[in-house]
């Protein structure tokens, strides 16, 4: 058994950027969980649909990539509001079963509709961070810069900056706007929120909207790493995101991001040491997915509220 330290920074950079994407999707999960204590199992498929919207707008209609992303995020937000209003609001949120069934049904429908329209082949979507601008001293066809003797991809930097920006904007929305204040109030105490005049339904719709937009962002950022978009692209990402959300604490927004990043790092380390060296390259992805499952179990076993969960998780 040999430890290959040379490639470790590469993998850590990789893990950090994958992790940032998991964090983005985990954030989408947590935004809805925080307000309703529900897990939206259609999060991944909604995000996938958003990525396909970008595909249509950018690759097929030739719109500027970033503009396509903004439009797609806005459209997914609208879809989120629509789903909340028509499919989940009629149900008592304290009864989890119906809403979980609804999100599972949505999962099937969205996946199948996307499969019917675009079939299940991988379609290339341009990388928003393909090449460095010309003024950056880079190597490897403008895709890398050298840090600690290893290659730091433009893509990774781009993902971090984008996520940081998105988080900053989310923070502004939640902390500086009235709708954000209402959202935090509903997440904290639904009944009292009603008593100060907050329309809880609309506010939850707002949560769904932001969550869907974040999911779409995550899907677009992850697409280049998967070779492109396809209807099943989010299946494993969602599991990692769930692990990240559980690890960070299902009701902590910051925890979701950090949890997602940690999961990405754990995955990277498994690839470097567990995957590549011990178990052989071929099976690394298998181990990684199992790791997500183990992370969830261990978190629940030792720290059910997650690393950063604020609300006391009730023992039964």
């Amino acid at each position, binding site marked *: 058994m040999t430890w290959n330290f040379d490639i470790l920074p590469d993998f850590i950079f990789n893990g950090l950027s994958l992790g940032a994407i998991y964090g983005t999707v985990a954030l989408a999960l947590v935004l809805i969980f925080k307000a309703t204590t529900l897990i939206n199992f259609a999060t991944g498929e909604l995000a996938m649909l958003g990525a396909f919207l970008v595909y249509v707008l950018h690759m097929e209609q030739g719109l500027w990539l970033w503009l396509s992303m903004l439009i797609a995020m806005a459209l997914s937000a609208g879809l989120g509001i629509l789903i909340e209003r028509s499919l989940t609001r009629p149900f008592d949120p304290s009864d989890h079963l119906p809403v979980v069934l609804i999100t599972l049904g949505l999962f099937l429908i969205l996946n199948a509709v996307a*499969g019917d329209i675009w079939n299940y082949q991988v379609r290339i979507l341009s990388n928003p961070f393909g090449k460095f601008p010309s003024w950056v001293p880079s190597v490897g066809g403008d895709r890398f810069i050298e840090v600690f003797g290893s290659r730091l991809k433009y893509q990774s930097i781009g993902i971090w900056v984008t996520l940081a920006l998105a988080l900053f904007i989310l923070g502004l929305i939640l902390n500086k706007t009235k709708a954000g204040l209402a959202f935090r109030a509903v997440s904290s105490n639904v009944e009292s929120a009603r008593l100060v005049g907050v329309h809880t339904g609309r506010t939850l719709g707002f949560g769904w909207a932001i969550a869907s937009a974040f999911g779409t962002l995550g899907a677009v950022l992850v697409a280049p790493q998967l070779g492109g978009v396809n209807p099943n692209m989010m299946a494993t990402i969602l*599991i990692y995101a769930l692990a990240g959300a559980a690890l960070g604490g299902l009701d902590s927004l910051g925890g979701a991001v950090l949890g997602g990043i940690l999961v990405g790092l754990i995955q990277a380390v498994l690839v470097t040491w567990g995957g590549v060296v011990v178990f052989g390259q071929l099976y690394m992805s298998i181990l990684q997915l199992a790791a997500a499952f183990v992370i969830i179990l261990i978190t*629940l076993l030792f720290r059910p509220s997650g690393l950063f969960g604020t609300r006391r998780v*009730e023992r039964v």
Partner: protein
Amino acid sequence: MSAPLVVVAKNSAEHKRWQYVQWAYVAGFVLLTPLVLQPFEIGKMNRALIMGVAILAVNLVVGFNGMLALGHSAFMGIGAFVTASLVQDENWDYWMIVPVVLIVGFLIGVVVGLPALRVKGLYLALVTIAQAAVFPSLVNIDELGIAARTGGPNGKGVSEEVIAPSYWEWLPGVDGARGGSAYRYWVIVLMVAITILLVTNYLRSRAGRAVLAIRDNEAGAAVYGVNLPIVKTMNFAISASIGSLAGLMWCMDKGFVAGQDFTFLLAVDLIIGLVLGGVGAIQGGLVGGLFVVWVNDLTKRISIPLGLYTLNGDGPLAKAIFGLILILFTFFAPGGIVSLGRIIVNKLIKVVPLTPAGQPIEPLSNFDPGMESTRADVAMKMSIAGPVLLAVGWLLMNVNNLLVGVLAFGLRMGILVLAPVAMLVGSNELAAHADGNRPDSAKGPATMARTLGALGFLFVIGYAVQRFVLTY
């Protein structure tokens, strides 16, 4: 027709008679299935029964304990792979593997369930979703000899098909062409029956009552000294071991298992079956299993041209149809088919419970509509409708269209219910007339309902017996 057509006291002779009719139908259905169906259709029936057992397992957690278990595909997979490996690599007999599979399923259930069930909320859903997603890739792990035992990405076949030993060949259907699948059908029916019996008893036991109490009022159950994490985890583990048993049945029936058979989509199928059948109803599992397998089969054959676009059930959209069914049922029929059935049955017949002293809690005469009763008329209409629907169904059967075919089948089945109900209501009404509770005008329709209903019923029985004798 708001008032029920028949009112009987629980456990009275008439109530028993109704129950015999019910059981006769169940027996007829079970007996005829291996006789009249094609071998590949029997295979589907087997598949439906196996799904039924797995859905029952899910129901134990979701329906009876109020927790969300969404990953039973993994337990089925574990059961199936353990079975395949023990049969193929170790030459065990299937019946020797049953306890092994049950124990393995139970232990894994404890490992997965305990962390998640210690805390309140959706955590079990979280863990089980992940479990379902991860399972198919686990069987490919090269280390620890796992892939060698599971066959890795290629799957694992059991080289010897399960066929009837000579002393079982007298079982209906177990000879000639259908032999193998019909024999497996009988084995599966036996296992299903035993499982249902055990689960029913379990739910009536002390532990089972605790499980139900948690579902109905978690805080209340805790106050009465129910140890919530332990009871929930045990229940989940029992459910997991039943799920594994379904996996064993799967392996025995198909003779081949692969990781790709036990994906998240199978888990979703189980949930759909549960909702379709009926959350919290024992029969729900079987009904759901039948529907998932047969509806899946149907949607695959649907092809509706819509102008430029053809809606093809064969492609990805089959799943969308299932998703739609799931959402529609959640909205409009949260109790599933079983509760819809109950609504219909309650329209037809009301069973009045007994007081501890053995008397009906409300005198049956309170339900008697008296002289204005229209029951005889309704019964007469039903007795006529049965044969008419049968004839229409027969005619439509020759139209070569899938949807019409399904409709025709449904119409023909109508007589199964209409004929006996008409017969029994007719004779009830005649008795009421003899007591002076009905006008003379009711006598004609009642007699007709009784006669026509009896003929229809005889026809159904005769037809079943004829099919039985003919094919046996």
